[in-house]
Structure formats: structure tokens, C-alpha cells
């Protein structure tokens, strides 16, 4: 009996995966549950174990090929005896027993795109992985694709993210000259590239910058950090303060926590604040999501961000933990940059970049109103927002709320 090895569903929202590397060759013996291949999904690499013991008799999907969940990747020839083959259709035998149900129901995958949807997406340059399906079980319907196509009207189809277009011409290839070397991007790099272009093509992005005096929280952290590390095992970071201030500002200005609907004519409001936190890894930039960040205390945020960041760097992150964010925080200052203009995560309308904290002489107003020049810890906070939904005044209100919260530095009760 032959066993099909299929692209697994690695989390509710993952629709496709890329075969990164085959660990076995055709003809190799494999044991049950022995690692068979590596796959890369939207930002996560993982091993796929063999569903049974036997001989690898066919590799159906080659390396670096992206296929939908449920697609047959390889065939294992099992050593188990073959069962009697019956037609998978209702057939009454002899005296007419009950009709056996066909396998259709069990094989139906909720997030597989239908041929019609794939064709429409390819024809219209719509990236299926970025669509919110409105069909049963979140399935993307032809209508969803049509709405997205009408909404985007992109000058250049983002075909790379969409399903393989029907009969599409191959992408132009580059012939290297002496001293040059051409290599394909890694699957993750490809995803990042497509996402970034998709983001810039499909939203009206601009960036507003404010300067924040973080002297108070720097001092607070310096005092509290050693004690917290010893007492609770928490490594208190400035990022946690920034995240806390940002999430609180999102609660008062929920527009920054919304999304533009796939039709480009509606607003999707999210009740919860799911905070994406950009993490620099050896393989590239990943954005794990702190779910329900609005419900967490400063220390709760701190723990969650550290846990997610650690697991993202070591590869122990689940695909579901990398999607579903409603707003993103990126610490652009970690390598010393004063500020940059972050690019929105597709589907979100705001991303806050926090620049390097530097000590500088600054005009500082004392509580009694007297001004003096003092050594202050300053940082630039840059908010990129989608001008389709968010106006400059909203962006400024958000940044001002974050700035006031951090400059006031009233976090003592959170650290008690």
C-alpha cells in the first residue's frame, strides 16, 4: 500500500508551504515518523516526518517549489499488505448494504484555494495569501478576489505571491558577467520581498516622527531591572515600556489598530490589540505577534516579548504566532539608527519604529517651570501609517500619547 506525504496544515492560517530540502532520496528506506523533508511556510521552517514506514518511491514536489496545503509531496511505498481496493463511491455489494460515504468530506481542506480563485487571482495580480476569505470556513471566494482586484488596481501585478498564473511567461533571468554570482533567494527572503512590495503597492504610506524624552523610563529601568531579574527572573527592557505605551495609545486611538477591508472601501475594527514585534534573526526579519497585548501588564508584555523573540531566533516559533497582528512595533534603534521609515505589515495601518536612545544636551523644564540645559536620554519615534485610513492629525495624536506616557514615566505601580 502506498502512502501519500502531503503538505501539512501548520496552523490555521497557513495556506501554502515551500519544499525547502529533501532529507531522503528516492529509493531510501524511511521509518515511521522519521524526518523526511524540510518545509518553509510563511516565515517558519519545519521538518515533516514520514507518515509511515517504507521506501520513498517518488518525490512529487521538487525543492524550492511552493504548493497548497494538502498537496501530495511524495509517495512512500509501504511494506504493509495492500488492502482490497474499493471504488470510493457509494456501491452496494450483493444484498445491497448501506452506501459507503466517499472520502470527499475528509479530504476537503478549509484553506485550499479553488482553481477558479487561483485563476482569478493570477489574472488580476491579487496576492491570495494576503486576502481575508469571506467564504465558509474563511475560504477565499471568487468574489473576494474580484473585490481585492477592484480595490487595489495595482499598476504591477504581484504575481509572485499569487498562485502560479496559468500559462504565465517565466520571470526574466539574469546572466552574470565575470565577477558576479547569482543565487536564488531563500524562501523566507522571497516572502519578505513579496510582502514588502505588496505593502508599498497597496497602501498609502507615510511616516511621522517625534522626539521622546525617555530619561524617566531609562532611570526607572536602571533601578528596577536588577531587582526584577533576581526576584522574578524577568529581564526588563526598554522595548517593554515602549510596547506598553503603544498598546495604551492604541486603546485610546483604535483607528491605528484597524485594517482597510479587502475591497478598499471598508474599515475592519479589531477589538483586541495584537502587537507584532519585529525580531532580527540570522535568516531575516520576522514579526511574532503578542496576542491580546492590550490585556497585559508591563511585566507581562516584557515576558511575552522576550519569549517570542527567543523562540523566533531559535526556530521554535509556530506559524500561527507570526500572523494576526493588528499593529507592529519595530526597534530600529537596536543597531544605533536614529530613525527610519518602517514599511507597514500588509493588513495593518500602523507601525511604530523606536530609534536609538542617545544622551544629549537638551532644554529641560523643571517641575517648578525653570528651564535649563541638561543631559537627557532622547529617542526618535517614527510612525508609518496608511493615509487611506489615518490622517496626519491622528498619527500625531497617537505619537503624542505615546510620548506623554513615556515622558511622565508613571510605571512604578507596574513594577511593584
Amino acid at each position, binding site marked *: 500500500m502506498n502512502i501519500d506525504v502531503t503538505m501539512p496544515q501548520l496552523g490555521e492560517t497557513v495556506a501554502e508551504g515551500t519544499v525547502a530540502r529533501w532529507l531522503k532520496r528516492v529509493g531510501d528506506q524511511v521509518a515511521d515518523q522519521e524526518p523526511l523533508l524540510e518545509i518553509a511556510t510563511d516565515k517558519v521552517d519545519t521538518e515533516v516526518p514520514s507518515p509511515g514506514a517504507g521506501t520513498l518511491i517518488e518525490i512529487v514536489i521538487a525543492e524550492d517549489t511552493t504548493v497548497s496545503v494538502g498537496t501530495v509531496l511524495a509517495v512512500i511505498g509501504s511494506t504493509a499488505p495492500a488492502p482490497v481496493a474499493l471504488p470510493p463511491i*457509494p*456501491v452496494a455489494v450483493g444484498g445491497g448494504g448501506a*452506501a459507503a460515504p466517499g472520502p470527499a468530506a475528509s479530504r476537503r481542506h478549509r484553506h485550499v484555494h*479553488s*482553481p*477558479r480563485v*487561483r485563476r482569478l487571482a493570477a489574472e488580476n495580480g491579487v496576492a491570495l495569501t494576503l486576502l481575508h476569505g469571506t467564504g*465558509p470556513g474563511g475560504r477565499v471566494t471568487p468574489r473576494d478576489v474580484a473585490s481585492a482586484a477592484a480595490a487595489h488596481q495595482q499598476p504591477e501585478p504581484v504575481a509572485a505571491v499569487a498562485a502560479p498564473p*496559468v500559462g504565465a511567461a517565466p520571470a526574466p533571468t539574469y546572466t552574470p558577467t565575470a565577477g558576479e554570482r547569482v543565487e536564488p533567494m531563500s524562501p523566507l527572503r522571497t516572502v519578505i520581498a513579496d510582502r514588502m512590495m505588496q505593502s508599498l503597492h497597496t497602501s498609502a504610506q507615510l511616516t511621522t516622527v517625534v522626539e521622546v524624552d525617555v530619561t524617566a523610563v531609562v532611570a526607572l529601568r536602571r533601578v528596577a531591572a536588577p531587582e526584577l531579574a533576581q526576584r522574578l527572573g524577568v529581564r526588563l527592557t526598554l522595548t517593554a515600556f515602549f510596547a506598553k505605551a503603544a498598546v495604551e495609545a492604541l486603546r485610546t486611538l483604535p483607528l491605528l489598530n484597524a485594517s482597510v477591508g479587502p475591497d478598499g472601501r471598508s474599515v475592519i475594527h479589531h477589538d483586541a490589540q495584537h502587537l507584532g514585534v519585529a525580531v532580527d534573526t540570522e535568516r531575516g526579519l520576522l514579526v511574532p505577534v503578542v496576542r491580546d497585548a492590550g490585556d497585559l501588564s508591563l511585566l507581562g508584555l516584557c515576558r511575552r516579548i522576550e519569549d517570542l523573540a527567543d523562540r523566533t531566533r531559535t526556530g521554535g516559533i509556530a506559524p500561527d504566532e507570526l500572523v494576526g497582528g493588528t499593529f507592529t512595533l519595530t526597534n530600529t534603534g537596536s543597531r544605533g539608527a536614529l530613525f527610519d521609515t518602517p514599511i507597514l505589515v500588509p493588513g495593518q495601518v500602523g507601525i511604530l519604529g523606536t530609534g536609538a536612545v542617545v544622551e544629549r544636551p537638551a532644554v529641560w523644564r523643571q517641575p517648578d517651570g525653570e528651564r535649563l540645559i541638561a543631559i537627557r536620554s532622547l529617542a526618535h519615534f517614527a510612525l508609518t501609517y496608511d493615509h487611506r485610513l489615518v490622517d496626519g492629525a491622528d498619527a500625531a495624536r497617537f505619537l503624542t500619547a505615546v510620548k506623554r506616557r513615556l515622558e511622565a514615566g508613571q510605571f512604578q505601580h507596574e513594577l511593584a
Partner: protein
Amino acid sequence: MAELTYRDAVARGIAQEMRRDERVVMIGEDVAGAGGVFKTTVGLLDEFGPRRVIDTPISEQAILGAAMGAAMTGLRPVAEIMFSDFFAVCWDIVVNEIAKTRYMTGGQVTIPLVIKTGNGGSLRFGAQHSQAVENWAMAVPGLKVVTPSTPRDVVGLMAAAVRSDDPVLFFEHKGLYAMKGEVPDGEIVDELGTAVVRRPGTDATILSLGLTVKRALDAADQLAERGIQAEVVDVRSLVPLDTRTILASVAKTGRLFTVEENPRLLGWGAEIASIAAEEAFWDLDGPIQRITTPHIPLPAADSLEDLVLPSADVVATTVEKALQS
């Protein structure tokens, strides 16, 4: 415009052609004096006389052998096989002789012959007198296969069948004989190989044939109440098959369902599903689904026969469920 029963429409169609062309003759068991056991040839003997309306012994092989010979030698016979189940006893003549002669004589001999037959279930006639066997005929190259679902189509398609220079198997549905419908006055000539959209819709294509046309239309009514606009296509002709109309409907709706009276394995919808999978794959927004009689000899008991033939309720439920998954 007259309201005719389906059974009266059969006689009207044959009479129309017999008046037009004296080479057209009617031959079969009890078709003359009795007007047919299903009363589909009433009045023909009176109008055209015993030389053109001929009763035969109870021998399907004799009927078709005589009809084939007549067709080879200049007549254009309409022969009747009373119950389509009985094709089994004369299938050699149909498959090996009637269907092949034009080809095996290099086109020198044609067989302008219509074999009309009472087909299908729903009348409690039991497993040996209720079969829908149009799919048998569909599997034989050299035969045309037609199944009208309305009195008007009976007249028009009978005329088209009689005028074909090649053999046509004309499947009348026994369960529809009592149905009434408007039939225009005057000569009616339809076209073989054309399907008809009986009800336009946008959400799903339901293919139907013979008995299942009305059931599919009733199902579409139910679905409309639940917000699903189903397009019902009456396939009418299996050979030639109007793939243009069928695939255009699939291109519009993205979903394909067939409602077949044939037992499951290789019912007529299997072939159309195969064609659609091959030629309309990129139009499909979900699996093609066939709604058929299960693969069993048809039971005679009322409750069981009603249970196994595809009903409007089953069609509506199946389509709705598929569109919501």
C-alpha cells in the same frame, strides 16, 4: 397553442413526420391497434393505415432486425422497444449492426432509424421495468441519444430524430407520460445536440435530464428561498452533447452538479464531470458533485423507490451543503 400530455406529444411528433414524408413508418408491439401500451401511438393506425403502422410479435430482435432492414432499403422507420430494459435482449443488433453499418460500409449504407422506448423509474415497475439506460446507449459510438423532458421537446426532438440520417435512440421517460405542457400549433422541428437553460442562475449549475429536470427546477426554487441562485440546464441530448452550453454555465457559476437517474457507476454525469474537469478546471470553485441513484437494482416498493431516486429535496440539500463547505 394546445396543452398536450407528454404521451400525446409522442404521437403528435410521429404523425407530423409521417404526414411530411411517406417513407416514415411505425413498427412495434401493440403500436397499431392498441395505440401502444403507453398510448404513445394513438391515432396513427387510423390516419396512416396498417401498411405504415405495423404491429409485431413479442420479439425485440425481430422488431429491430426488420426496422434496420427497412432503413437500409429506403424507409425511415420509427421502431418501439416498449421498455428500455428490453434493449438487453436486442443489444447485439443495436450495437453491432445498427450503430456500425455506416462505418463498416464506408458510408455506402446509412441507417435513418429512430428507436423510441419507454425509459426510467418512479412508477413502481420494479428492477426489470424501471431502468434508466440512456447511459448504455451513450457508450456506443455510432448512436445518437436524446431524452426530452417536456411535451414540446418531445415533438421537436422526435422530428429532428426522424430527419437524422443516422440512428437515434429516443428515450421517452415513462414517469413523464402523464405530464402536461403547452405545445405550439404547426410544425415543430428542434435540433439534436442542444441543451437548454431552463432556469438562469449565478451560484451553481445543475445539469438534469428527463425525469430529473423538474426535480432540479423544484430544488432550484427551494435554493432560491435560501439565497442560492442555481442555474438548471436540461441536457436533452447526450450524443451529440452540447458542451458549449454546459461549459458556459460552469464558467458563469463555478460549481457543477449533475442529477442523474442512472445508477451511480458511469451514469451520464460521469462523462460530463470528466469533460468539465478537463476543460473547465480553472472555472471551478469547488468539487464537481454527482447526485445519482445508488448503484443498486431499483426497488419496487413505493417508499424505497422514492428514497433512492434523486429527489428535489436531496438535490437542494446537496447543493446547499456543498456551497457552504
